[in-house]
């Protein structure tokens, strides 16, 4: 039994445990099918029976394994921002009750209940596109090989759409005259104007 409601609870953590188990089973099955194919004579690999075996062993089972790996890894990675000491100053500020930065206010007021780093920084594309893979690779290279740069910058301007995703439809947002101003509204919606031109900085400007 698990402390978070048992083996069959619908909590996200539990679902991920089951998915990881399914992924291991799928991967082992795919490996067994591939091994079966590879130990046969090469000529067998173009027979009609081999074609169906290969469809399952090279395409169906591995695809499902990869997809499961993506979902489980993606979930774990959303919680992994704090695992690198690199981000400590920003996380400390976010959790500092005296801090008035936007990140701290969102954390203190539970405006974002879970995965606070990821929720605002979805622009990193953790879902697995090529850009995300290159971004992940560069983080690995920096962390393990070249060292973390002394000054860390966000790699591209923060997307206004991320703020508008939660705030854009709220009455509080729409009541502000500047947000509805015919000159400013298109600039905000197009991303030409950043939220942080008027609002407080989301994080401390420098490491402290």
């Amino acid at each position, binding site marked *: 039994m698990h402390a978070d409601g048992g083996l069959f609870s619908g909590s996200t953590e539990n679902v991920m445990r089951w998915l990881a188990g399914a992924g291991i089973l799928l991967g082992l099955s795919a490996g067994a099918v591939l091994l079966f194919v590879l130990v046969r004579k090469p000529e067998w690999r*173009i027979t009609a029976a081999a074609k169906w075996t*290969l469809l399952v062993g090279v395409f169906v089972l591995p695809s499902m394994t990869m997809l499961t790996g993506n979902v489980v890894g993606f979930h774990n990675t959303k919680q992994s921002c704090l695992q690198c000491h690199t981000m400590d100053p920003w996380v400390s500020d976010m959790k500092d009750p005296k801090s008035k930065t936007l990140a701290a206010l969102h954390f203190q007021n539970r405006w974002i209940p879970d995965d606070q780093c990821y929720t605002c920084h979805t622009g990193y594309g953790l879902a697995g596109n090529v850009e995300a893979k290159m971004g992940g690779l560069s983080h690995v290279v920096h962390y393990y090989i070249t060292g973390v740069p002394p000054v860390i910058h966000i790699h591209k301007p923060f997307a206004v759409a991320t703020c508008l995703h939660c705030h854009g439809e709220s009455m509080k947002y729409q009541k502000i005259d500047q947000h509805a101003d015919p000159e400013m509204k298109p600039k905000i919606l197009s991303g030409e104007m950043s939220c942080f031109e008027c609002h407080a900085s989301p994080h401390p400007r420098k490491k402290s």
Partner: protein
Amino acid sequence: MTDAPVPPREDRGPVGWVTAACYLAFVGIGFSLIHFLWPTPLLFSLFMIVGQGAFGLAMVLYAIAIVIDLKRQKVL
């Protein structure tokens, strides 16, 4: 130069492509299993880059094998 007849090369069709696809899919599955068992950010990155990269390449080789096979059977 001799006029000895050259023996016809054995047509193995897409066997080589299929075999390479199998090995690459194996690599991809290996990385995914490692990442399932030890879910660390580093292993997730390796799974996303090396594992999925190898699997993607396996899919390309598998597709090439299918095209070669269809051409052999004169379907294409």
